[in-house]
Each structure stands twice: as C-alpha cells, then as structure tokens.
C-alpha cells in the first residue's frame, strides 16, 4: 500500500530468485482506499494470498473469519521469532489468544518539537511528564503571543487523544469490548489535560484543512510541538528549510507521571484463509521478516522495521530522529481489538471537536461518548451473548 506498494516489486525480485518456482503478483493500493478494497475483495471472494494489513484492521477481518491463524507456522519457523519484536506491537496481532499476523513495520506517535524555540523559552531538553510539558507550553505561549501557538493538536485527529488516554493504563472499553469506558477516572484526567490545551490557547482550534501545510507552519514557528508518526521524519527532512534542520527533534510522549505510553500502530503481514497457496505465502512472510530485508525496506520507504535486530542498521542506529521512536516502542499499547473501534474513535473526535467549539459542555462528554459507544457496540454484545448461549 502507498509507498510500500511502489517499492515491493523491487524487494521481491530477490525472493523470486531464491524460490524459482514462485512468482509474486503485487497489487498496489492507495492507503485511502485500501481498507474498503479489502472488504470488497472479501465480499467478492477475491482475497489475496497474503496482504499488508493495518494493525487496527485485524480485529475486523478476524470477525469476518477471513484470516489464517499463524501460531503453528510461527512455532515451526526459524526465521520469525516473536521475541525479537516489541510486545505492544505483537499484541496488536493477537486476538482471542491466536496470532493472526506478523508485524512488518511499526508506527507510533511521538513529539516533534522545535529545539530552538524551546531553548528560547528557557528549556534545554524536551518534557518527561505532563506537568513539565504544560509548563513549557505556557512558557512558549507567553513568548509567541496571541497570533501563534505552542502546540498543534488538530481537531480532525483522534490519535493524540487516544495516546494520552492509553497512558492511563486502563482499558478503553469495558467487559471484553462490550461497553464504552469513557466514564472512568483515566478518561476524565485525559479530558481535562486535553481541553486545557485549547482553554489556555496553547493549541489553535483548527483542523488540518485550515493548516494546509504543516511543514511551512512549523518552519514559521506557528507552533513548536506536534504529535505525529515516523513518516514525518522523512517529510521534515525533505520539506523544512536547511537552516532549520538542526533545530527540530523528536522525543517520546510525556506521560502523567514520567515517560508515557503511546499507540501501537503499523502494518502486519497476514495470510487469508481462502488462499490455496498458504505455504508459499508463509515463505514470503518469512522473507519479508528477515532483518536485512527489513533494513532494505527502511532505506526505500523510511518505514521503521518491526524487528528489533533490524534496528542495528547503520543508517537507522545513527539517525537521532529515530531514537525517540525506538524508545517509545518499548512503551506502546494496542487500541481495543474490536471491529467497532475505528468508529468509536471517530465519535470521540467528533465530540471533542464540539466541546472545543463550545457546542457540548465538558461535563457531559463522558456520558455522551459512552452512549454513542454502547449503541455502536450493541451488535457486538448480541453476537457475544449468542456465542455463549448457542
């Protein structure tokens, strides 16, 4: 998908040379249409043998019974060793005690920040916890005045809020994913912290639409902190002017009391149940899981390899911007593994936007979100209950 699809043919040539009988046909999909296309492929009985899957999609495809559990193959494999992966990432592929995918590359959210602006505000290093972070944001805001801000927290993204909530260490859904858990203390804390960013005018109440060009605004100092993922490393290097290249850095996400957790994201490789060529597909999974191949993929796409041993690669080990990701990956947690999660997270985003715009009162948020989540999960509860009784 996306850039991965473009370089796949190049990487797979070596695989075809090793396995002279096998030919890999790559179907490239843009990320924006990939999920839809895969579901349509399932409905139309046209699933591929093996596919790159967003970690958060697996629950949905497992609910469809579309994927092959990989545990026996992993146990019998000399190439794929799950101990070489970050446990938070491996967990995203683990559903009902079965492993449905092998992590391919990883993705999480960290802080991108302007070192120079932070230094001007009197801080030499990035924040470790929420209090320290809030202090820095206040200090920066005092310096830049009403026209500029300290942090970009776009209203059309739910990932930052979800990452901050995951730091609280409580489940985001209750009772095996049957009910929403928004009326919890952890969510209340997250909500207070998140809303303070807008109330103190530390973050502009805007969406990506109004920013138009994040890199230009970052270069202009419109904001100093931004929560984003590994793909931005390459973008920042490419798009920020040369004189700013030494002025930006990445840092792990600060937590309520010391370094905090973040979202376990990324892509995995999964094999479809209907595939008649599972053994060959598994060979391809093993090939793509080799540390050398993962390093080659990193060089071609900038995607961070899932295997820890692949990080020994010279380019990656020496990249100071990747270091925060390595550190953060030790503390990543998966989002709830239910097919409805994406929809619930979208409701979270919509409600948060309304709170920031003043359409919903802050003290009504938790009950409203629980009501929305519980309605979305109704079918799931029915399915689970029927499984128990039937």
């Amino acid at each position, binding site marked *: 998908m996306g850039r991965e699809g473009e370089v796949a043919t190049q990487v797979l040539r070596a695989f075809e040379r090793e396995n002279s009988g096998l030919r890999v046909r790559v179907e490239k999909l843009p990320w924006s249409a990939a999920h839809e296309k895969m579901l349509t492929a399932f409905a139309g009985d046209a699933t591929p043998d093996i596919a790159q899957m967003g970690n958060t999609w697996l629950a949905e495809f497992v609910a469809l019974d579309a994927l092959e559990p990989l545990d026996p193959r992993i146990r019998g494999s000399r190439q794929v060793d799950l101990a070489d992966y970050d446990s938070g990432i491996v967990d995203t592929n683990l559903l009902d005690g079965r492993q449905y995918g092998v992590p391919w590359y990883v993705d999480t959210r960290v802080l991108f920040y302007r070192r120079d602006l932070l230094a001007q505000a009197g801080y030499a290093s990035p924040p470790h916890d929420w209090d320290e972070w809030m202090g820095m944001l206040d200090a920066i805001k005092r310096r830049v005045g009403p026209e500029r801000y300290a942090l970009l927290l776009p209203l*059309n993204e739910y990932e930052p809020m979800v990452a901050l909530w995951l730091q609280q260490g409580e489940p985001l859904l209750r009772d095996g994913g049957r009910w929403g858990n928004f009326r919890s203390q952890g969510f209340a804390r997250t909500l207070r912290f998140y809303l303070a960013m807008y109330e103190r005018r530390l973050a502009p109440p805007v969406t990506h639409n109004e920013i138009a060009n994040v890199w230009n605004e970052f270069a202009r100092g419109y904001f100093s902190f931004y929560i984003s993922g590994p793909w931005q490393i390459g973008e920042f290097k490419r798009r920020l002017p040369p004189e700013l290249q030494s002025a930006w850095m990445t840092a792990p996400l600060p937590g309520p009391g010391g370094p905090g957790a973040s979202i376990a994201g990324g892509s995995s490789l999964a094999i479809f149940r209907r595939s008649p060529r599972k053994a060959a597909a598994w060979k391809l999974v093993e090939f793509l899981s080799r540390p050398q191949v993962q390093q080659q993929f990193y060089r071609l796409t900038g995607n961070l390899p899932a295997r820890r041993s692949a990080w020994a690669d010279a380019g990656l080990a020496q990249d100071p911007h990747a270091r925060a990701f390595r550190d953060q990956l030790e503390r990543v947690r998966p989002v709830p593994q239910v097919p409805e999660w994406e929809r619930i997270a979208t409701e979270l985003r919509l409600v948060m936007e309304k709170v920031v715009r003043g359409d919903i009162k802050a003290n009504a948020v938790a009950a409203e979100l629980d009501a929305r989540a519980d309605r979305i999960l109704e079918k799931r509860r029915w399915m689970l209950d029927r499984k128990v009784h039937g």
Partner: protein
Amino acid sequence: MKPSRAGWLFVAPALMAIAVFFVVPVAAALLMSATDFDIYALADLRNVRFVGLGNYLQLLQTPLFWRALLNTLFFVVVGVPLSIGMSLGTALLLHSPLVRFRGFYRTALFAPVVTTLAAVAVVWVFLLHTRYGLLNYGLSWLGLHPVDWLGDPHWAMPSIVLLSVWKNFGYNMIILLAGLQAIPGELYEAAQLDGAGPGALFRYVTVPALAPMLLMVSILTMAGHFQIFAEPYVMTQGGPAERTVTVLYLMYENGFKWWSLGSASAVAFVLFLFMLGFSLLQGRLTRSAAFS
C-alpha cells in the same frame, strides 16, 4: 404475432437491463434497509437481524441525521436559485448583441464544469485559506476582518455553495443560452412596437419562452443538489463540527466506511422520498404558475 406482443419483444432487452441493473438492486436495498446488515453479516448471513422500520426510527432519533438534512436543505435552498440565477444572468449577457469575443467567454465560463473537482478543490482550499487566501486578501482591502471560510461552522456550508455555484453554473448557462437563441426575434420586435421596455421584454417575452427550459433546468439542478457529496468529501470531510455532512455523505459514511449497509440503505430511501416530494411540489408550482 399480435402487435402488442411485438412491441413487448422489442423493448424486452431494455426492460431486462432495467430490471437487472435497477429494479433488482433497488428492491434489494429496500429489503436491506429493514435489516441490520453489517460487517458481521458479511461474514455469516445468520448474523442478520430483521429490524423492520428500526433503521428508520433510529435515524429519526439521530441528531446527525437531522443535521445532515438541514445542511442539505440549506445547500438546495440557497444553492439552486443562486446557481440558476447565475446561469440565467451569464446566458443573458452572452446572448446580448453587444458582447464581443462571445466564443471565448462561453468557453471560459464553461471551463469549470469540465475540470476535475478534486483538482479544483485544492485550488479553492488555498483561495479560501484564512491567512493566505485571495478571498480574505480582498476582504482586508475593504477593511473587513478575515473569515475562516472552511474552518468556521457558520461559513463552511456557504463556502461549499460558492464553490459549487462557480463549478456548475456553466452547464445550465449553455442550456439556457441555447433556449434564448431559439426565441424568435419577431416576438421581441412585436413587443417593442407595442412599447415594451427592456424589463417588460424580459418579463413578458423571455421568461415565458424560456419557462419549459427553466423548469427542466431547475428540476435537474435540484436533484443534483440534493445529492451533494463530492464537494464536502474533498473540501471538508463533513467538518467543521459536522456542518457540511450532507445526507449522501452520511449514507457514504454509514455504508462504505462503517459498513452498516442496513442503515445506509434507510438513509438512501429517506433521501429518495425527499427528492420525490420536492420534484412533485416543483412541478405543481410551475404548472399553477403557467396557468395563472
């Protein structure tokens, strides 16, 4: 063979195509709208529950549905007259004997219709940008405060209307221009001999002669406006604060993003009923206007 049977035989291929590609899908969608067909049903048909009118009742209780309906009605009520007025105005200008380089203007004004919306949207996002946009630059010249066109919940839908009118008026303009050119010049001459001024000429010659075309144009434009989807999809993704979520956009999200095909089908039928109602109303209004 009886002539009537021969007739049926001749239209049979067309009827079959209509049955397969129209009647069957519509009937299936109607059936689906009475179920909770979703991703679980895709896995196993035993997971489908029959809910009767449940989807419709649920829809009526969803604030977002009413929001979407309101947004869509705003777009129709403001956008349709504006769009047709713009088309008629430019068509009249182009028809005027005083205009030179008519071919050039006709092409230039028609050009937005044939450009790709996705590309146009990118340009418009920049034109409407709060801090760097040309539109706000113009406002600042007039000494007015900048408007957050796409980010302010109050301005987002008007901005979409603006884009849509600019993008689409050329199409109706061409149709109305053809209509204007078909009006015999003798009618104008006769009216002028009777002492009619420009206003009276427009009111008593142009408008009645153009009426059938205006009716067709307004029904088609209204049907098109009810189905607004692409503009908010590429410009605002339904935001800010759900102010640009339209009925069709809601259907798309329910059906193809969340895969709740049952409730998406229900949205589709509600939209159909609305369009049917408005078209009937429009037809009746124009007919009574024509007889009066």
